């Protein structure tokens, strides 16, 4: 029989693509139950009634895929609660419909490009997370331009950056430079200051957005912590 912990670990791999954080950390999982016959029921909740339907769809669809792929799951029911597009999204994902069919007439392409765009931002922001402590410790542009992933101090942020880079098909091996442009090319030492300035700003945008979302979720579901 499938264990609830196993389902939870699968949900931990589902990211809010806009914020680049797991839906479990964001408290977006309102409930998660597993029946004896392997039916998994997950309810998701979001910070506002008007959260963008595209990101919302991706989270519901990714949760569906992650849970369905587990051995022992006979059926996965993923339900988005309290959202202006709940009906379309829940119906679409349950019917294995893609985004264009789910929002017929309102979308002209699938969400791959959108996902990619935000993964690219995550890779830029991630470079600041890894490099900033080094900058603060006095490491200069030349050294930073030469620094490889393998030589950067080990940290969860570094692992996360590698995973995002790998997902985009960007160099993620030990010998790959830490600082890269969106196309994967090396950042020259002369470009380091501006590159990091931009990385810091992108990180600020994503993290402050995440903070806002968390505080709205807290207000919206005051005193109703996700039962996880």
């Amino acid at each position, binding site marked *: 029989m499938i264990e609830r912990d196993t389902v939870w670990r699968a949900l931990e791999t589902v990211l809010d693509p806009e914020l680049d954080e797991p839906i479990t950390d964001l408290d977006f999982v309102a409930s998660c139950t597993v029946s004896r016959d392997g039916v998994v029921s997950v309810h998701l909740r979001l910070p*506002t009634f008007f959260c963008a339907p595209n990101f919302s769809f991706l989270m519901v669809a990714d949760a569906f895929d992650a849970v369905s792929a587990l051995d022992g799951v006979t059926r996965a029911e993923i339900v988005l609660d309290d959202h202006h597009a709940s009906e379309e999204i829940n119906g679409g994902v349950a019917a294995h419909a893609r*985004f264009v069919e789910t929002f017929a007439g*309102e979308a002209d392409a699938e969400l791959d490009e959108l996902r990619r765009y935000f993964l690219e931002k995550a890779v830029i922001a991630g470079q600041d997370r890894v490099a900033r402590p080094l900058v603060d410790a006095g490491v200069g542009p030349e050294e930073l331009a030469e620094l490889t992933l393998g030589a950067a101090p080990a940290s969860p942020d570094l692992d996360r950056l590698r995973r995002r880079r790998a997902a985009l098909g960007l160099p993620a091996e030990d010998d790959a430079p830490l600082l890269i442009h969106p196309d994967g090319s090396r950042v020259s030492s002369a470009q380091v200051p501006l590159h990091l*300035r931009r990385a810091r700003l992108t990180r*600020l945008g994503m993290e402050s957005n995440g903070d806002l979302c968390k505080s709205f979720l807290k*207000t919206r579901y005051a005193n109703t912590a996700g039962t996880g």
Partner: protein
Amino acid sequence: MYEKNGEKYFVVDSHMHFWDASRENWVEGRENLAKGWIDCFYGYHTLAPPETHWTWEHYLKVSEEDLMKDVFEDGHVDKAIFQSTYLKYWYKDGFNTVEQNGSMLEKHPDKFIVNGRWDPRDGEAGLRQLEEDARRWNLKGVKLYTAEWHENGSRGWKLTDKESYRFLEKCRELGIRNIHAHKGPTIWPLNKDAFSMEDVDQTATDFPDLNFIIEHAGIPRIDDFAYMAVQEPNVYAGCSVVIGAHMHARPKTFARFMGELLFWVGEDRMTFGSDYNIWTPKWQIEGFVDWQMPDDEAFSDYPRLTTATKKKILGLNAAKLYGIEVPQECRLPEPPSIPEQPGEQLADESTPAGAQA
């Protein structure tokens, strides 16, 4: 006017509202949308200092007297610019229409400026309405809300839509120079990022004689906004929400936002807006005048704010955009300081940057 330590600040609240989200105004069968909308706004409201919080009921609709007291009597504002948001898909008479705002202008002609609005999906009728509004309210600006749902089933539009350009040309013809663009949660097509700034970028290039004030500085896409603003001299950072949602609730984030905007956009292209009725202006203005970049090492490469910087942001920049006369005692000494936009030199990646990483 706000006075502190002998300095006089002329305050233009360049982004505020007089809304009606009362139950009586909810469209039948769409109550969930009407409630969802105002609940969402109420979430923002709670980011202000607790002593300024209103009850949810009061938040639905304030009286004229409340507004006059909150904004002018207590709020230090000299001139307030109404930005309309229609949302007629779920608010019967609209959330905050030109007519509602205009009624306040008629009663207090020296206090307000009313901005219009248009929606390219309204076609010819919309163009005629814009002409009429421009005459009636002497429009100098419009607020464009691209996330508005439309009765034709569409849930948003882009500034670069072909019809939108006809309206922008009409603005040009009517002498409407200030385009306040506001990004929201839905847009056509739904697969695109609703907060994307690409359309503003293109439009600002195509209409160099119009000013594009991007409300809440593009947050949550402040990075995309900054890279656009650094290249488009007619793009401004509307600081509504920047201050209201962060100065109290997230002071460190606020400091970073200010530092980044001063670096990339510069103090001459930032404008204050209280976003009333989301928040009242009093605490925002008083707090901002008292505010300074933290001394921490982490903020050391951000510029510190001078009194002149604050005067520009709180009122002088918007006064310039709208041709509002500023009392002599509140002006900055002539000649005006050299516009600062330090980010410009870094915009060209081929130039080796001198600034420390």
